[in-house]
């Protein structure tokens, strides 16, 4: 075991897989010499050489499109897009080809690749550096979308993502890249894709969240506990496939659900989860499932972001509202 940040844990996962599988290549803007702007690929080029870990030209569509070519011809590329706001030049390749090649070729060609990028707000950033576009990717058939909330999960999920034969969108909550430190095994381990984790059991209300919001939820839960409210917290881990069973079981038990996600509220992962609550636990519901979400607005720059970003207090307010319904 050793103490790792999420940055270190993902780096460690990449290191283990690069060592183990010669077909893996890692590339993107600034990932080679610099080791990535967040240092997630630090040291990997020195260890595995420029043929396997390298800087690409500055073109996201090129990065993802070439990765598809590599993936259908025997390699297993892991590509970095520098920020979530810069995934969109690659969106055409992701939507039109990466997600579709396996079906289009009737499984003649699989696309074993991982597209990883930092996402999310709360870091006082410039525009295009604070968004949470998970719903855009989760809506695309043929992709799996993974979001870790701890260093341990990041490592296990990343190794599973790399070993998956399907294309994976791996979204890394940049706000907690270094904010959370945890004992993580240095050995190889995997975590199943598509399975949520019950972070904490409770009886009065279910909170479903993921990524950087787990920590905010835990703070809100501490506030709720003081007023005697028992909260069950589920970390989704995988946005698609979504763990219907774990969510359904929990909502049937508590009768209440709150979804906490920083993306814009309309047409979000929260919307999908409410559909699941209706389908799986309609007769058990004691209050309407609700979302604590970002507004349907652009994430404001630093001075205005405090209004947009979800505080533990706002989560607690919604917990109370649901309980008192």
């Amino acid at each position, binding site marked *: 075991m050793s103490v790792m940040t999420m940055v270190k844990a993902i780096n460690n996962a990449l290191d283990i897989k690069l060592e183990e599988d010669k077909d893996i290549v890692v590339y993107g803007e600034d990932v080679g*010499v610099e080791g990535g702007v967040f240092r997630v690929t630090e040291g990997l080029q020195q260890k595995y050489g420029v043929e396997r870990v390298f800087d690409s*030209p500055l073109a996201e569509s090129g990065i993802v499109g070439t990765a598809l070519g590599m993936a259908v011809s025997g390699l297993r590329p892991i590509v970095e897009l520098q920020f979530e706001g810069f995934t969109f030049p690659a969106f055409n390749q992701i939507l039109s080809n990466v997600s579709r090649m396996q079906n289009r070729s009737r499984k003649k060609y699989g696309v074993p690749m991982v597209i990883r990028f930092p996402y999310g707000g709360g870091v006082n950033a410039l525009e*295009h550096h604070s968004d949470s576009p998970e719903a855009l990717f989760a809506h695309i058939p043929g992709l799996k979308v993974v979001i870790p909330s701890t260093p341990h999960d990041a490592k296990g999920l990343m190794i599973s993502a790399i070993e998956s034969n399907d294309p994976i969108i791996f979204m890394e909550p940049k706000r907690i890249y270094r904010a959370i430190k945890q004992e993580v095994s240095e050995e190889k381990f995997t975590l199943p894709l598509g399975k949520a984790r019950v972070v904490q059991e409770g009886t009065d209300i279910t909170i479903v969240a993921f990524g950087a919001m787990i920590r905010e939820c835990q703070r809100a839960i501490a506030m709720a506990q003081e007023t005697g409210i028992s909260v069950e917290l589920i970390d989704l881990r995988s946005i698609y496939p979504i763990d219907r069973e774990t969510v359904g079981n929990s909502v049937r038990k508590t009768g209440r659900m709150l979804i906490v996600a920083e993306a814009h509220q309309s047409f979000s992962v929260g919307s999908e989860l409410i559909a699941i609550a209706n389908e799986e636990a309609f007769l058990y519901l004691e209050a309407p499932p609700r979302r604590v979400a970002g507004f349907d*607005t652009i994430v*404001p720059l630093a001075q205005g972001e405090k209004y947009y970003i979800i505080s533990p207090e706002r989560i607690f307010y919604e917990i109370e509202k649901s309980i008192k319904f």
Partner: protein
Amino acid sequence: MIQNDLPAIFRDFDPIEDKMLQVIDNEGNVVNEPLMPALEDEIIIDAYKQMLYERLADEMAVSYQRQGRMYTYTPNMGQEAIHIAAGMNIRKEDWVVPAFREMGTLLAKGVTMKEMFLFYLGNEQGGSFKDAYHVLPIAISIGTQFHHATGIGYSVKYRKKDEAVYTFIGDGGTSEGDFSEGLNFAGVWQVPVVFTIQNNQYAISVPVKSQTNSINLAVKSVAFGIPGIKVDGNDFLAMYLVYKTASEYVRSGKGPVLIEAVTYRRGAHTTSDDPSKYRCKDEETLWGLTDPLIRLKRFMQNKGIWQIDEEKLIEEYRLEIDAQFVDAENNKSYPWEEVFENMYTDMPDELERQKMEYAQFLSWKEKRR
């Protein structure tokens, strides 16, 4: 196709031959007398002052960020000759479609340092450049602005306006699809756009040699049937000549041009970046010798027109820039409603509902205190 009546400099400095236009060397000596632009001394003095102002404002911005008084900032140091030469050739009615490292050009168009500071203090009011005529906000999404400039060019041409469009991109940006697409559209439509590549040698950590296998960046114009030219971007007089020529060319309706200004990003990519990870001090020192301010100053000294009391001017500018920063820093006005107000012409009911819910939360929070 490229017209036969192409200005001489575009023929004499054919990017295919990898020639670079230069007027003065690092010592400020004139190396290409016939190209020396006919500028009155006052204009050159003014240019130096503008470059000095940009340099100081930039240094101070980095320093405010280091003091924790400002968020992430993108330094301009070393690229001032391009910005000021462009600014001096851009008229009030012309359009500027920036990338994010053209501060001097923005200032020339009427953007204030207070606005720049406010923007980097995390307030969209600063980045709206609301009083600067025909200036778009900065484009962080790399390369996308090339299309916008081309579209504005079409609009200008369609409306028969006497306006030219100036847009910028970095060396890294030339790898994006939008760079090539934008130039292709501009070539097909023959729009009045001056495209500038500020080749500052690095896209964050990636050197230009890892960005392209082309002999230079100006040569990319050839594929799109657009005149292109490679210029010493740290040579103010060369940049002035090229912008003057390019401006006359596009304004006369002959179509777009592409300028590659060869320069060096003396600072970091942003204040979050650490160049020592990917480049050595020797390289920085070597490029430092080509610094645009030093060169123009030497030229002026050689010519006997250096009449600037620089120390006094620096002190004066610093006080003025600091006052603008403090003014921006004291602007704490960011009402929460503003988050919602600029999204749509008329706020949709759904957004209005979200706003109301947030107001309810705020009043609950207030009562709880």
